[in-house]
């Protein structure tokens, strides 16, 4: 232990002794401005007010105008307008409503969540009997005639 203490005393001795090294002059003044508002002197700012003519040229040039769409066509099923690459919103809404009702009935049948049986489901409308292929499947009854878009087979 005494050797270690001796080494610590000797090793950090400086090569240059005496007043060769001065302590760095500590600058107390801050180089940054004190208030936030003074720093805006070094920011970019507009020199002149942009006239309304210049503003109109910028706002109304063809790049900024809205382009007319050329991909709108009537739906072949219902006649409402649709975009070529998108499903018809009216037909989709009609299917969505029916499936929401069917899902509600399934939920009522199951009772609690995550209670679905490990078999397929078949939706039967008014006056329909389960076929031979639907032997072991779960049946959901709907009290209305079958919609034309919901084909059975």
């Amino acid at each position, binding site marked *: 232990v005494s050797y270690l203490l001796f080494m610590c005393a000797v090793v950090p001795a400086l090569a240059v002794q005496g007043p060769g090294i001065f302590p760095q002059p500590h600058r107390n003044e801050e180089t940054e401005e004190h208030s936030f508002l003074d720093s805006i002197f070094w920011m970019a700012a507009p020199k002149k007010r942009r006239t309304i003519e210049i503003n109109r040229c910028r706002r*109304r040039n063809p790049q900024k105008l809205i382009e*007319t*769409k050329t991909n*709108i066509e009537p739906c072949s099923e219902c006649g409402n*307008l649709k975009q070529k690459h998108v499903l018809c919103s009216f037909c989709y809404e009609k299917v969505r409503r029916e499936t929401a009702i069917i899902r509600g009935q399934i939920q009522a049948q199951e009772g609690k969540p995550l209670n679905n049986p490990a078999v397929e489901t078949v939706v039967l409308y008014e006056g329909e009997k389960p076929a031979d292929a639907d032997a072991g499947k779960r049946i959901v009854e709907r009290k209305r005639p079958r919609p034309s878009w919901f084909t059975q087979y």
Partner: protein
Amino acid sequence: MWYLAKMIRGMTIEQAIAQLEFNDKKGAAIIKEVLLEAQEMAVKSHNVEYKSNLYVAESFSGKGQYLKRIRIHGRGMFGIMDKVYCHYFVKLVEGVPPTEKPRTGFDQAKEYVQQLRNRTIIHSL
């Protein structure tokens, strides 16, 4: 809103409604409602025979009331936020929309020369 109004200027009403239906701007739904109401009004009380025989003659938007609110920024700064309202005006006219003939450079030059020729010296002999 102005961009939508500019887009439908000169279109047939069916074309205008189709374009507005598939536009994503908030004003598109509002203008579409206005056009449908105007179409209905035209058929009911303005003696228009066919509801699709209309075209948009004039369509423009104007500045409405601006409500001012404070928007708080950092460092104790604040900005004045404008809650913007606007008015929308549309005029439907019965018939086929008029086609604008495209003015070529030659036509413009001819008009300019004609303007120069029309100049006279007033109060002269």
